[in-house]
């Protein structure tokens, strides 16, 4: 007993105390280390996780800028709308779903059954039950606070002018981003910068009024004003549609340009999509959503003779009175060439070559006078074989096969001289002829007149890409174009002196081989006419083209009246005074108006 008592009162061994102290120390150290790890090392992660629990953030979309015509009339604007969605998980409760559907039905002009049927078979995730609901209705739905109902603010793009300039303007997708046309090309300017709103939320996810709030205001997109004039565009589209209907062409192109600046006043291409009847599912590849005036290439035909003649005049090799002997036909590289009317004209001047559009004249000019090097040098200088630099998507380069290419032959040079065997876009054609009309400068075509943002306006300045021919040469060609136009019964513009040139191109095909061995379907043509007015101070350059025409008539018969009518309408609209007397029957000496 005494031994036991002694043991009980004996001092503990020092190593035991040390062990306990060590254990406590280790435990404490471990806790401290864990705290350091959590609070210091992983501070950022945990604090952001904690913030995520009670903070929420929403993106505030920026208002998309408008697309305006040259006079400031809106062609595409955005309005605020709502998309109405439903959280399927919450609407799994049949009673809640029924109550919600009944509350939404009158606002969405649907029956509760129709709304419930839109939920589909899935049991989780959001389901959109209405898109682009007008703003007031969307706000009312949001204010109802129905369980599981989501009202998502959005913007809807509307086109006040309807289908006007559809292929040029393009359209936006469900996310509000541009998909085609100018909506795509100028998307970065139109979109703006979205803002954000960060707020403290309660248990239900609603913002706490007195909680932490941080918001960055969205910056609205810029308004883009075009060089397109809606009235001229309307005239252009109507004239083209009438021309297509009348001739049963498969399509066509109409471009109106200010030749002095390169500004495009109107541009239309048919067939093309219409904004009012847009159906993306009908063309999943999106091949039809293009602006053919910019993207599509074709063989231009005799309008191209203007460039051949420009090369001859500007190089000093020929002048308007230079004569060649027009034989009935010419054989080049074992291919037979003749005039469009199989005529044999004998000694013929260069002016007559253009006036009568003689193939053998331009063929003589390229093969006997200019040679391939000089000819293709001018062809490329006029902008063929490279994009126009318009900034429009799909800006085609065209196909120019020159003597530097392996498969080239002299027959190519011969046919290129009158616009066959070479592919161009309509925009390239009008830009090239604009260089002749404005005195020799190849302009960069453009459709964006200015960009307005936050009270500032950035104006697009006309850009001269290069000088192609001298002003004297350009004046000579213009004089020749005046004679060409005057020789055409259908082309003159009443009250105005003008210049122009027609063209009729055969369409290359791989299916039909003619007896002459050409890969052209000679029963199908592309007639076209390009002209400018008034002659002394050109205000407009107009190019009209019809596609795949099965008609015996030539371009000068079919498209020249279109040019004449269009030029007359546009010049009247632009208040351009006549520069020559009207025909006698239209003039009056009445002392008054």
């Amino acid at each position, binding site marked *: 007993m005494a031994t036991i008592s002694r043991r009980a009162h004996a001092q503990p061994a020092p190593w035991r105390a040390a062990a306990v102290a060590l254990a406590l120390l280790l435990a404490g150290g471990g806790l401290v280390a864990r705290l350091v790890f959590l609070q210091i090392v992983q501070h950022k992660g945990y604090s952001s996780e904690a913030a995520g629990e009670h903070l929420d953030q929403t993106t505030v979309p920026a*208002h998309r800028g*408008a697309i305006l015509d040259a006079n400031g*009339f*809106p062609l595409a*604007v*955005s*309005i*605020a709308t709502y998309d109405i969605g439903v959280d399927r998980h919450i609407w799994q409760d049949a009673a809640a779903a029924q109550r919600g559907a009944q509350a939404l039905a009158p606002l969405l002009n649907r029956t509760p059954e129709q709304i419930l049927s839109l939920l589909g078979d899935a049991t989780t995730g959001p389901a959109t039950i209405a898109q682009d609901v007008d*703003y007031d209705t969307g706000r009312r739905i949001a204010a109802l606070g129905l369980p599981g109902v989501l009202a998502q603010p959005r913007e809807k793009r*509307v086109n*006040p*002018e*309807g289908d*006007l300039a559809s292929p040029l303007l393009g359209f936006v997708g469900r996310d509000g981003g541009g998909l085609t046309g100018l909506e795509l090309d100028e998307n970065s300017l139109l979109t703006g910068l979205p803002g954000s709103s960060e707020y403290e939320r309660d248990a239900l996810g609603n*913002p706490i*009024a*007195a909680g932490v*709030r941080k918001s960055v205001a969205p910056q609205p997109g810029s308004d883009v004003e075009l060089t397109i004039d*809606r009235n001229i565009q*309307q005239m252009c589209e109507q004239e083209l549609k009438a021309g297509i209907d009348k001739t049963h062409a498969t399509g066509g192109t109409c471009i109106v340009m200010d030749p002095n600046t390169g500004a495009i006043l109107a541009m239309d291409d048919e067939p093309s999509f219409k904004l009012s009847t847009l159906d993306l599912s009908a063309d999943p590849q999106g091949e039809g959503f293009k602006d053919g005036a910019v993207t599509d290439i074709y063989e231009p*035909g*005799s309008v191209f003779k203007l460039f051949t003649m420009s090369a001859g005049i500007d190089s000093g090799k020929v002048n308007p009175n230079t004569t060649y002997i027009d034989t009935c036909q010419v054989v080049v590289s074992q291919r037979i060439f003749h005039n469009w*009317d199989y005529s044999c004209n004998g000694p013929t001047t260069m002016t007559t070559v253009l*006036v*009568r*559009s003689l193939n053998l004249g331009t063929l003589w000019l390229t093969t006997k006078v200019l040679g391939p090097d000089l000819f293709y040098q001018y062809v490329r200088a006029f902008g063929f074989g490279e994009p126009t630099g318009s900034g429009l998507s799909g800006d085609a380069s065209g196909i120019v096969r020159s003597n530097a290419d392996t498969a080239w032959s002299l027959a190519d040079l011969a046919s290129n001289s009158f616009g066959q065997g070479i592919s161009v876009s309509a925009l390239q054609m009008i830009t090239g002829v604009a260089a002749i009309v404005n005195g020799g400068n190849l302009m960069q075509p453009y459709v964006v007149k200015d960009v307005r943002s936050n009270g500032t306006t950035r104006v697009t300045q006309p850009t001269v890409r290069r000088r192609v021919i001298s002003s004297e040469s350009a004046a000579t060609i213009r004089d020749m174009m005046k004679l060409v136009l005057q*020789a*055409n*019964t*259908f082309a003159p513009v*009443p*009250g105005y002196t003008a210049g122009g040139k*027609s063209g*009729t191109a055969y369409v290359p095909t791989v299916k039909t081989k003619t007896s002459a061995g050409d890969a052209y379907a000679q029963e199908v043509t592309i*007639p076209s006419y390009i002209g400018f007015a008034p002659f002394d101070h050109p205000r407009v350059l107009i190019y009209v083209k019809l596609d795949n025409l099965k008609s015996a*008539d*030539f*371009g*000068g*018969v079919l498209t*020249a*009246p279109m040019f*004449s009518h269009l030029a*007359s309408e546009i010049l*009247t609209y632009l208040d351009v*005074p*006549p*520069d*020559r*007397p*009207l025909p006698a*029957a*239209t*003039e*009056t*000496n*009445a*002392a*008054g*108006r």
Partner: protein
Amino acid sequence: MALAQRRATSGEQAGETPLLRRAGVLLALLLAGGMILGAMFLPVLQNSDATSTGYQIEHAQQQLDDLRAKTYTLQAQIADLGSETRIRQEAARLGMVPAGRASAVTVNVPAPAGVFLPHGLAPTLTAVAGAAESSVAAPPTPADQSYPPAGAPSATPAPTAVPTIVPPGPVPSVGPPP
């Protein structure tokens, strides 16, 4: 005796002092309590005020959004009403028809001084000479400086003199070159 009086006086003073002291302590306690209550209540007031302001801001922001949305909608409506398609429809509804080709006339009366007349519409030399002769015969008074002058023929031409544009001739059987 004097000592007794002094004691009595000091006794009275001693009796007053605890009362005052007690009142002072009570007042201090009340003040302290009030301050504590105030300090407790102040955050409530602040929070209430902040919450109220927060709601006001939220409401104002919503109003701003609403007005902005209405502005965009109204802009689109204005654009719709001003669209060329709608103007054409309205014009047709009012019985208007598309204009024919515009006609240009040559006047033989010189424009009043300072009035610009486009080059294409300027009177011919012969017309000007004729007008000058008539002005010699009947010089206009200052009151006649308006256009057209009082002595000039009617500004409305006779029906037979209405200028017309002759449409292009019939389509020839042989077209021009391509």
